[in-house]
């Protein structure tokens, strides 16, 4: 890869600007906010506006900054290790997000596969149907699930009328409702990248497999699945990462015993008014998400370099 990019001739100013743009974007919208959050996580809570005493003030100059550096306190991070609430919340969030991602994949794969295999003429329509829910507000759609899932809701009424159940099922305010909410909300994020990779799949490979006497399920297992892996991974990340930090879905659909880090963070920020600790919770959350992803990316790159 690298060799291709490093063209021998000198880059023009325009080319540099083009390369700088995404980095600038990341710097302003990711790194700077992250550093602000990290800075707050090192400060102390106070009754003031804003409600913390800054650990250091950049306005005081470089020398003051260096002096303060040695006195930085990580007590908010230590606090997180002292109460098992936090790691239980992280663990439970990762579990809920993991199960949801798996369910989304199980439902999303056949959808994407069906879309990619459908006649070319109706694919734009199918694609449109996947995107269509985004035209309604996310909040309203999650709220609508309350009406569907509650004890006297549409689902229970339907099942009762069909005689499948004799008593209403309790779904709302349980983890099952959270799974339903996440799978429903994030399904398009999985279907779209998966569809993209399945659509690009070279059909002649499958024809060749068939000619050589390979049964369809085996051809799927040996050819389609491995070739759609990048799309699957991208889709799973797009579901898993936001689902870990999800707040709205567990709050509206989950029960009081649904422990998720998004809710823990809310309580820390709003009820305890402890911006430093809630910032520390957010920084750790980012670490939990970013480190495995970076490791995975490295692994992927090594593999593709080896294969290439």
């Amino acid at each position, binding site marked *: 890869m690298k060799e291709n990019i490093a063209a021998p001739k000198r880059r023009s100013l325009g080319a540099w600007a083009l390369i700088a743009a995404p980095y600038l974007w990341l710097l302003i919208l990711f790194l700077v906010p992250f550093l602000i959050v990290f800075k707050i996580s090192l400060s102390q*809570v106070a*009754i*003031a*506006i*804003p*409600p913390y005493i800054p650990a250091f003030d950049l306005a005081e100059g470089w020398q003051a900054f260096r002096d303060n550096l040695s006195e930085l306190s990580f007590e908010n991070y230590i606090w997180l290790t002292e*109460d*098992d*609430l936090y790691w*239980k919340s992280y663990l439970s969030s990762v579990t809920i997000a993991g199960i949801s991602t798996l369910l989304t994949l199980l439902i999303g794969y056949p959808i994407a596969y069906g879309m990619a295999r459908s006649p070319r003429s109706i694919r734009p329509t199918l694609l449109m149907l996947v995107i269509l829910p985004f035209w309604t507000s996310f*909040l309203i759609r999650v*709220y609508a699930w309350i009406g569907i899932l509650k*004890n*006297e809701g549409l689902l229970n009424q339907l099942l009762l009328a069909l005689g499948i159940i004799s008593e209403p099922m309790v779904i709302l*305010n349980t983890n099952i409702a959270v799974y339903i909410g996440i799978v429903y909300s994030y399904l398009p994020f999985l279907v779209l990248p998966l569809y993209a990779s399945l659509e690009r799949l070279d059909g002649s490979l499958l024809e060749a497999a068939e000619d050589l006497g390979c049964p369809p399920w085996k051809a799927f297992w040996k050819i389609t699945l491995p070739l759609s892996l990048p799309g699957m991974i991208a889709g799973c990340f797009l579901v898993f990462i936001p689902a870990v930090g999800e*707040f*709205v879905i567990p*709050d*509206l659909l989950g*029960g*009081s*015993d*649904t*422990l998720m880090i998004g809710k*823990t963070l809310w*309580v820390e*920020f*709003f*009820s*305890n*008014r*402890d911006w430093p600790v809630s910032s520390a919770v957010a920084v750790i959350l980012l670490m939990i998400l970013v480190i495995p992803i970076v490791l995975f990316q490295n692994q992927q790159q090594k593999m593709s370099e080896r294969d290439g």
Partner: protein
Amino acid sequence: MSLKSMLTGVAALSLMSGVAFAQDRTVNVFNWSDYIDESILEDFTKETGIKVVYDVFDSNEVLETKLLAGSTGYDVVVPTADFLSRQIQAGVFSKLDRSKLPNLSNMWKDVEERVEIYDPGNAYSINYMWGTTGLGYNVEKVKAALGDDAPVDSWDLLFKPENIEKLNDCGVYILDAPTELIPAALNYLGIDPNSESKGDIEKAGELLKSIRPYVQKYHSSEYINALANGDICLAVGWSGDVLQARDRAAEADNGVTVEYAIPKEGALMWFDQMAIPADAKNMDEAHEFLDYIMRPDVMAKASNYVYFANGNKASQKLLNEDVIGDPAIYPDEETVKKLYTKAPYGPKINRIVTRTWTSVKSGQ
């Protein structure tokens, strides 16, 4: 909390952009949802020419976070007194200019005295509404579950397992408000509801945990509809909200009768106070708004609409009989004596209180 607060956030954004272009006199008011007769705002604009940009929230926490972040763009906000007290310490509010508030003379001394512990001298705020945190129940369903002598006038209904377990089938909701439920549990245990000892808070937590298996939801607004529809039979809720549920059920004529009781062991008395942020852009308009609200006829109109008692003595003769005559809204002397107030928790103990509450709710 989430849906409304996000909508509120969106509303706040649109509000700020509105402010930038408005040439006329404007006052930006941030109040609780469903907490005013909207015609009061229209009348105010008619009389003074001041446009009211009205925006709502449904949790003290959301309001406080906005205030502590600064530059809210609001000129009048309505926190509950214990939150107000901490916000005063943080320097959020501007002292009221009493010379601009001649209607202060209409206010009720008894309420002002009780607010003293939050806002000494009532220097920063005026009382808008006050109420109690008690029990709202479905008369028929509670009777069916517990018989005619159900202890509906006592916290026993909630805190005695033999009572609440029988209400499990018909449903129990509790306010998601640790700073109200922990004192209520302490009061029931015969401990000072203002206790800030860790051991006492934990005892209250134990009591609340013991009834947790019978509680369907901890939420601060859904119980209004749930009570009115007959979905639940017991809620720990705010007086006016339960009374709204009572009236909705009566209007719907759905065979549901909702009642509110101030338990005989005592209940929390709380105060929602109007105050002006220190960074308010429209100080004069904010004062005019507060003074207008303190007019007896306006305050009476507000209470007649929301079914909460107010801190305005002069408004009392203008109140409807179903407000002033209802002991659930304006309790008698005997009951008032049993009502307690709760001073705000310090930061350290506040963390223990919210942590205890999290463990009550989540079982963790």
